């Protein structure tokens, strides 16, 4: 019985099925908001108001011809989409979905999730590396360069709510603002929230941090040689990464409360959609910046800002302890 329950958790809810459905819905929301901010209509044709368009896109890719370059390392080339998808789905299992605690929650799970979310970037680099094509390789090196720029500020930003709540467990960090009258921590962490949003945008390789996939320079970057089923898996991975990243940021910065299956899931849907909405605003307001600009922006602004935020939080904690 227990094994069946765990299998349901892993494959249905909050595992693969829920993550796939919710993440494609988030992609639709992002595309719709992005289009409306540009005075366009966005997806319209498939499903109600184009809601099924991301699903249709993935199904279309699944049905397309799957080509592997003759010089590519075939096994590694095929393994990379699976690895990155597995990493993000595993990370998603630690997000507290309908309850304050996920079914496999433990002290230190935020560190595990942060590291699992690094694997897709490495998979992208390796996908470019094993493709043996100039564009893929160039895109792959850009992914790595960008990773070294945003990863430290991202971790520092996630550190702030963890230090504030005195726990490394996502469930406890999420519960902290809503329990014992600690609601004031949310506005106090605004700098770290901003840094987390921008670095998440970089992690997702979205405008203005989409230089690894700049079509005009490197075609599709590390995914240039990918097609068919493998590209569909990468596409799904990207959607689920957006869900997991946004849900993680929402949980640690916006908190959460015990809500049961319906109310709990609804609050996750709402706060994750809010974070995705903010990411869409960033995407619509900015233009692509160069890789050197990303590195200097991250290390000159984002990293110091998260350190200042950490200092503020430590001072507040020290004052509280006195």
């Amino acid at each position, binding site marked *: 019985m227990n094994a069946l329950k765990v299998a349901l958790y892993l494959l249905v809810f909050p595992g693969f099925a829920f993550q796939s459905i919710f993440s494609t819905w988030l992609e639709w929301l992002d595309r719709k*908001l992005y*289009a*409306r*901010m*540009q*005075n*366009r*209509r966005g997806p*319209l*044709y498939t499903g109600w108001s184009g809601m099924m368009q991301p699903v249709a896109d993935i199904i279309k890719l699944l049905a397309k011809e799957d080509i592997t370059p003759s010089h590519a390392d075939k096994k590694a080339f095929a393994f990379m989409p699976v690895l990155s998808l597995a990493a993000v789905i595993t990370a998603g299992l630690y997000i507290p979905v309908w309850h304050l605690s996920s079914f496999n929650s433990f002290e230190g799970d935020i560190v595990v999730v942060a590291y699992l979310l690094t694997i897709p970037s490495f998979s992208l680099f390796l996908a470019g590396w094993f493709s043996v094509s100039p564009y893929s390789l160039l895109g792959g090196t850009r992914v790595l360069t960008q990773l070294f720029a945003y990863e430290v500020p991202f971790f520092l930003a996630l550190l702030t709510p963890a230090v504030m709540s005195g726990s490394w467990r996502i469930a406890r960090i999420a519960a902290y603002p809503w329990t014992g009258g600690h609601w004031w921590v949310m506005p106090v962490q605004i700098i770290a929230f901003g840094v987390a949003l921008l670095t998440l945008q970089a992690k997702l390789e979205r405008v*203005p941090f989409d230089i690894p996939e700049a079509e005009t320079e490197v075609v599709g970057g590390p995914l240039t040689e990918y097609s068919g089923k493998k590209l569909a898996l990468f596409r799904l991975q990207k959607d689920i990464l957006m869900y997991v990243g946004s849900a993680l940021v929402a949980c640690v910065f916006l908190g959460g409360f015990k809500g049961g299956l319906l109310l709990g899931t609804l609050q996750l849907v709402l706060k994750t959609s809010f974070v995705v909405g903010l990411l869409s*605003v*960033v995407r*619509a*307001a*900015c233009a692509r*910046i160069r890789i050197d*600009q990303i590195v200097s*922006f991250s290390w000159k602004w984002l990293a110091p800002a998260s350190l200042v935020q950490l200092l503020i939080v430590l001072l507040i904690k020290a004052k509280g302890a006195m």
Partner: protein
Amino acid sequence: MSKAAVLVPELLRNLATHPVTRAFPFEAAVVPKGFRGTPRFRSENCIGCKVCMRDCPSDAIHIDVTVIPPTEPAVEGQPAPKPKKKMTMTLYLDRCVHCERCAEVCPKDSIYLDEEFAMAAFSREALKIVME
């Protein structure tokens, strides 16, 4: 990057306004005046000079001239009835670039471009249009 925040109020305002694009294909699209759609043929005007065929940059037009012999018998003392000409235009829409050159060069105004723009088809054969 520093000016990105300036755009945010306008972007948020756009969320509350109507989109400028149309909900095609659910709403009919209105084409602007002078739109170059599908070439059409007025066979009664055509004299079979084939200048459109010669000038078409993408070789998308073929004009066939069929001579139809007179049906009435010749009457003595009167000039013999002339054979009629039947003009047929075959348009290869998969090659047409909608440049309107055919309509421009036609001396008898027998080709014009209408406002039809939804021309997608599943086969090339369906894009071959014969007009008489």
